[in-house]
């Protein structure tokens, strides 16, 4: 029997770099290699696991610029545009979120990556052109300092690995 909570707790630490990584996990949670593999497959099929593989830190690879674009999109177009934005490979997230009026009128959020600021702006213009965005209010929020970045920990145990990333300060565009 697999204890899902235990499996998630171990999985969020990352797969061991061992010849038989699923067997190592199985041993930690008193299960079998086969059960672990099958349960991960099941979570993938159900959509609980969105993606299973290498999780890369883009900034360290030279994709030094990333920005959040936030849009104020009328209700009748938000699904269409959310999907349109989500299809570009430089967009890594496209989420609808609630507005917070009057402080925050935006209801659609996308993360855009690029090699530098100009690259990000070019990508944004590409989205606007290709998804037929007219008369929509938006803002581009460039990220500056990264105070912390690691995988999400839904289950908080003693063994958690904190991968705090500090002072990756970007050069501001002149």
């Amino acid at each position: 029997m697999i204890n899902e909570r235990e499996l998630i707790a171990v999985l969020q630490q990352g797969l061991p770099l061992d010849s038989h990584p699923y067997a190592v996990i199985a041993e930690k949670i008193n299960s079998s290699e086969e059960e672990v593999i099958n349960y991960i497959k099941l979570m993938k099929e159900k959509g609980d696991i969105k993606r299973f593989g290498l999780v890369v830190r883009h900034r360290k690879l030279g994709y030094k610029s990333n920005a959040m674009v936030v849009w104020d999109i009328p209700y009748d177009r938000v699904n269409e545009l959310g999907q349109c934005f989500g299809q570009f490979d430089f967009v890594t997230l496209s989420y609808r979120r609630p507005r917070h009026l009057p402080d925050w009128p935006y209801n659609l959020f996308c993360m855009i990556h690029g090699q530098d600021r100009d690259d990000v702006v070019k990508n944004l213009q590409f989205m606007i052109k290709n998804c037929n965005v007219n008369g929509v209010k938006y803002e581009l929020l460039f990220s500056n300092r990264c105070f912390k970045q690691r995988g999400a920990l839904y289950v908080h145990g003693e063994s958690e690995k904190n991968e705090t990333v500090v002072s990756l300060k970007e050069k501001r565009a002149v």
Partner: protein
Amino acid sequence: MTIDEVRQADVIDKTELIQQLMNEYQHDFPLSTTPYADIATRLGVEEQQVIELLRELDTKGILSRVGAVFRPNRVGVSTLAAMAVPEHNLESVADIISSYAAVNHNYEREHHFNLWFVATAENAEQLQNILDDMEAQTNIRIMSLPMEKDYHIDLGFPLKLIKGGLLHD
């Protein structure tokens, strides 16, 4: 071929191998008993080379982990939260927020709302308690923007190795 030329060829091979590894295995990592050996066979190298390369990428901080990206709100709950922090307090407030185990991403963004973070918990009540506690600790209001709908299909990010990235240090 001179020794220098041989070395140069090795470097190119390694770079290509890293690029292949990253582009083919950000999704659909093998769910077999020997995933690293399977990857090695597919890329035409040895299992130990794959493991050592991943270890190197991990040490350099390029690889966050090999593993699962869970769908938001399927396993536990999460929210994107924003704060408008006075500039002179930003670092100390950011440190307080980062100190919570529930926080995974915490970024400064160029906006009136200048601190953005993602917080996760096992359930909604626990998440609310964490946000309440953060407000009490920092004396700053938190705007919580939980995801309502996900439009993006996460297939990983096609990567080209860029000059200036850590691999070229």
